[in-house]
């Protein structure tokens, strides 16, 4: 009789424990996609590959297609910039939502001056000199490239509607953009400033950095942090 009792107790014990473990695992599942939950972990990106592999690696890892004239330094700058923002899987999901590569055109003559760029089509951006050594500096390259990629995100997602309501409506246009401002330009600028505001010296701010970005444009900052980068901060 005792044996039966022992077996019965052990049976229920082993039944209950997996139930508890299951409850634990399903609670992990519910955390996925919860905006109030912890931000997704940063993705580890390998360092820039050697010259003969960098173009292919950019394409394979990030969906970036380099065309035009460039040297290894230029390609490396592109790689380091996209590697920086690609730490956020949310950013890459936003950028690659059309599953079509982004083509970056390099080495063309600029009508806007150095350290500028523009978006020419749904999947194309042009970055002007100098992406090699010297020139814009690391922060300048990041600022221009992330701004232009911001236009690609704008064209591939429906985020503009919420951006205008949540950020532009409350904080106005972003003052760092040096040309004619608009919802479109402030959208791209919001993303670029989020990444470089501590290190880039903005022409519109008298060549100073913008440490007050989070406090002066809190709704921009929050939108970039939470919606564009999924909680990853720089």
């Amino acid at each position, binding site marked *: 009789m*005792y044996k039966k*009792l*022992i077996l019965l*107790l*052990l049976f*229920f*014990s*082993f039944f*209950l*424990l997996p*139930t*508890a*473990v299951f*409850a*634990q695992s*399903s*609670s992990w599942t*519910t955390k996925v996609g*919860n905006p*109030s939950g912890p931000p997704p972990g940063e993705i580890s990106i390998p360092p820039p590959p050697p010259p003969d592999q960098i173009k292919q690696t950019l394409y394979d890892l990030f969906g970036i297609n380099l065309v035009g004239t460039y040297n290894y330094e230029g390609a490396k700058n592109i790689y380091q910039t996209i590697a920086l923002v690609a730490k956020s899987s949310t950013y890459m999901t936003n950028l690659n*939502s*059309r599953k079509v590569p982004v083509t970056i055109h390099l080495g063309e003559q600029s009508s*806007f001056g150095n350290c*500028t*760029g*523009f*978006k*020419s089509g*749904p999947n194309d951006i*042009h970055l002007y000199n100098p992406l090699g050594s010297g020139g814009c500096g690391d922060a300048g390259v990041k600022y*221009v490239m992330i*701004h232009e990629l911001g*236009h690609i995100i*704008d*064209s*591939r*997602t*429906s985020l*503009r*509607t*919420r951006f*205008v*309501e*949540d950020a*532009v*409506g*409350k904080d106005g246009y972003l003052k760092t953009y040096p*040309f*004619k401002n*608009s*919802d*479109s*330009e402030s*959208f791209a600028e919001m993303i670029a400033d989020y990444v470089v505001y501590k290190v880039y010296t903005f022409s519109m701010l008298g060549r100073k950095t913008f440490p007050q970005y989070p406090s002066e444009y809190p709704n921009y900052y929050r939108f970039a942090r939470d919606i564009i980068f999924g909680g990853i901060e720089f």
Partner: protein
Amino acid sequence: MYINKKIFIALFSFLFLLALSVILIIVFLPKKSPTVPSSPISPTPTSFSTKTTTPPPSLFTQKENYKNIFPGKSTQEDVINQLGAPIKTEVIQNEEKILYYPTNNNFILNRIYLSKDQNVKYIVRKITSSDQAEAGSYQDFLGKYPKGPSGVVYDPSDNVYKWLVFSNNGFALFVNDSGNVLSIQYFKPMSFDEYKATVVPDLSLSISVPKPQP
């Protein structure tokens, strides 16, 4: 004595596993998600929003007209009767006016353009995120118009969105490459040539692709 020891071990094991199970269930059971307000901004109780007592029809069914106001037919009086007083009125060139009405987001305003003789010329309706939630898909909508738009025009300040003009149907959609609709224009049905000659200059649009802007 030997049996008692076995019972003791079994009971201890049982109670230990039971306690462990209960603790795990309590700690990791999914908690009720906090209630998230649908919009951080409470809609202003304007005449525009209080007029509607029943839920508005979906955006999809509203695409071809706006609140039963028809450019070329409705007058300023019809607009006021339908929507109440505007929150702002702007007089533009040739004594024409723009009446501004709030959407369900305080920062986003719809515009109704009136001619000098107080007839409705155009409506520019903004699509808010709550409109999007109830909107039918853009692709579904285009399915109703298999010929596609009569043409494309541009807003010079926007290098991402463009206006797809269904001129014979009297509306245009401001869309990006993913099909997100930001605004809808309503106007009197006309040919695309007439649209280019009248609506484009009146709304400061452009028939050519905007020059690249950094």
